[in-house]
């Protein structure tokens, strides 16, 4: 069931891309209640079970396989994400409706697909059980959020989007260096296994410092906040809501995890 929470937005984004035209908006709006229902189901199952839900990809258990874990924090964040995405979707219908008489317009097409992609990436961030899955999810989040900034194509928004991209990529690379150091020190990237193995040594401290700095760059905490005002000022209203509410919180969530 955890996999469904990731798959529904991603499949929605892909089908919306293929169908094009007015269908992008319909598919996006249709997949929102489905995603919301799945997330609420996860929340209910978690409360009933009392222990974190774990899903092993390919039935291979760590340290060789990749695990998706949903504990209390993940479930709450996913529910909030689904609620915000649904609210944004309803609000954005006014801004991003394909005009009558044309079969497809550029901005609505891109917006709905990117909204679903951001949602899928966020769910992966909240469910990822090892550091490298989190890295991939973080990159997905960045690639889906950057075009949202420059959706109207003006010069300032393009520059703001490029600045956001470079800052975010720097953050991802610092996170990756921290991951490399942790793997070199402990031999595993699974978070549950690491929590049992970690002890204070220079490698751990340096890795933690690097990863925190990298993630803070993506969260736009001072002093790495320079990309945020131009990006949010330039983005259309609905996109800005998604960006400020969810995207920056995704990277902060990973800081909390670590």
């Amino acid at each position, binding site marked *: 069931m955890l996999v469904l929470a990731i798959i529904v937005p991603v499949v929605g984004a892909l089908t919306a891309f293929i169908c094009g035209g007015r269908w992008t908006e319909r598919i996006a709006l249709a997949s929102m209640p489905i995603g919301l229902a799945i997330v609420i189901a996860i929340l209910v199952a978690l409360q009933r079970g009392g222990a974190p839900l774990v899903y092993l990809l390919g039935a291979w258990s760590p340290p060789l396989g990749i695990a998706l874990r949903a504990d209390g924090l993940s479930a709450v964040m996913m529910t909030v994400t689904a609620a915000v995405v649904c609210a944004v979707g309803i609000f954005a219908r006014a801004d991003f409706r394909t005009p009558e008489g044309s079969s497809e317009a550029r901005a609505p097409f891109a917006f709905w697909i990117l909204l679903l992609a951001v949602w899928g990436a966020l769910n992966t961030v909240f469910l990822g059980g090892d550091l*490298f899955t989190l890295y*991939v999810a973080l*990159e997905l989040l*960045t*690639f889906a959020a*950057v*075009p949202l900034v*420059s959706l109207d*194509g*003006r*010069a*300032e928004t*393009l*520059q703001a*989007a*490029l600045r956001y*991209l*470079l800052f975010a*990529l*720097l953050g*991802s*690379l610092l996170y*990756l*260096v921290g*991951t*490399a*150091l942790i*793997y*070199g020190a402990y*031999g595993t*990237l699974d978070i549950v296994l690491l929590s049992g193995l970690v002890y204070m040594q220079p490698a751990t401290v340096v890795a933690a410092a690097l990863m925190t700095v990298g993630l803070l760059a993506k969260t736009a905490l001072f002093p790495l906040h320079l990309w945020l005002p131009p990006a949010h000022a330039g983005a259309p209203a609905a996109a800005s809501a998604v960006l400020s509410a969810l995207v920056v919180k995704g990277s902060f969530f990973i800081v909390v995890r670590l």
Partner: protein
Amino acid sequence: MSAAVFGLCGAAAVGLGLYGLITHPQLLRKILAFNLLGAGVFLVFGVVAHRGAAAGFGGDPVPQALVITGMVVAFAATALAVALLLRLFQATGSATWRADAASQASDGPAGT
């Protein structure tokens, strides 16, 4: 060649890339510096793979898988950044960092 030499080269590449990313105003150079930074990080991954090599294996396969994934991600990121840069150049006629990009856009390409 011991792994330490590769590790130091990786660290030097990371340092140079970071310097280039932060200081150069030309956006294309920033993108190139980001690629250099990525190459340094992957080299560090390679050193980690060598240190984790058990007897009988050439190198620990997990960091190699991570490097391949990282290269794909960096390639996609570079493609996105270059596409944005091209569009910015079409809109403003310059590929340098400008604090007043709006007035640049009103001038139009080539300042006509």
